[in-house]
């Protein structure tokens, strides 16, 4: 049997961060994170190594996120409200990031988020998404180029060392 408690301690934060971005709502992400580990409890197979465990958990997480998106689309629900953030400027950036991520293709968004928010290696992501590491690299690069143009304003502010929205007050 899999030692789910050890997996939880080791990976829950990464899984949560990935799901937070993937579904765009902290509360939903928290529920889905719990679901990931509940499903992991029922797994009968022992995992060979840490990389296999990571890949397996993120495969579950990704499937849950995709299911969530499908259900949301079927219900024609509006996007979940953004997670609470301090300040209006930060909320604007949050909304912009969410919108930009939503405009990426599903697979491009997933590989980008697994790298950027969960810190998975290209090899790990390749296992989760059934791609080659080269394909993962290409997709991540493509996602970044797209996000670079969609988030041009926050990136520009960041390069100038400004806080989000601070130019508005000048």
């Amino acid at each position, binding site marked *: 049997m899999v030692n789910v*408690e050890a997996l*939880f*301690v080791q990976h*829950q*934060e990464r899984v*949560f*961060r990935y799901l*937070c*971005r993937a579904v765009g709502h*902290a*509360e939903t*992400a*928290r529920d889905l*994170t*719990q679901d990931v580990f509940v499903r992991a409890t029922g797994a009968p197979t022992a995992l060979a190594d840490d990389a296999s465990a990571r890949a397996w958990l993120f495969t579950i997480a990704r499937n849950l996120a995709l299911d969530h998106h499908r259900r949301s689309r079927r219900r024609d629900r509006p996007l979940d409200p953004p*997670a*609470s*953030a*301090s300040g209006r400027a*930060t909320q604007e*950036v*949050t909304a912009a*990031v969410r919108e930009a991520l939503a405009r990426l293709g599903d697979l491009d968004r997933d590989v980008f988020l697994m*790298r*950027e*928010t969960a810190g998975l*290696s*290209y090899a790990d992501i390749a296992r989760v998404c059934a791609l080659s*590491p080269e394909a993962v*690299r*290409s997709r*991540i*690069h493509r996602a*970044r*180029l797209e*996000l*670079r143009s969609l*988030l041009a304003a*926050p*990136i520009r502010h*960041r*390069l100038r060392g400004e806080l*989000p929205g601070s130019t508005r007050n000048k």
Partner: protein
Amino acid sequence: MTNATPDLEVISAFVDDEPFDPDALGRALATDDGRQILLEFIALRHVIADDGAAVAPAVPVRPRSRWPLWAAAAAVVVALAGGFMAGRTLERRGQSDQAPAPTRTVELRPGVEWQFTNGGR
């Protein structure tokens, strides 16, 4: 092929700390576009990370360890067992301080020869 468009994907591999071809990276960063992309990719990472920090407090609560509960239960058991043993020890010690109940009483009366001569002098 010296004028070929440099492979800019190598910049992504570089910022992600993945294996990359140093020559390819050198060629990519020799262009204005390559340098700009590197800077903006790093800034993008910060934008995503800063924004992610806003939801960080909602990290799921780590399941509480059962250790303190077991420790408390063990402490109670040890205290009870210790108290019981200490009680028994004191009880035994208290019993040994008292004289045992007499089985036979010899009465000494004044004026009565109490030494046995048994046919002596």
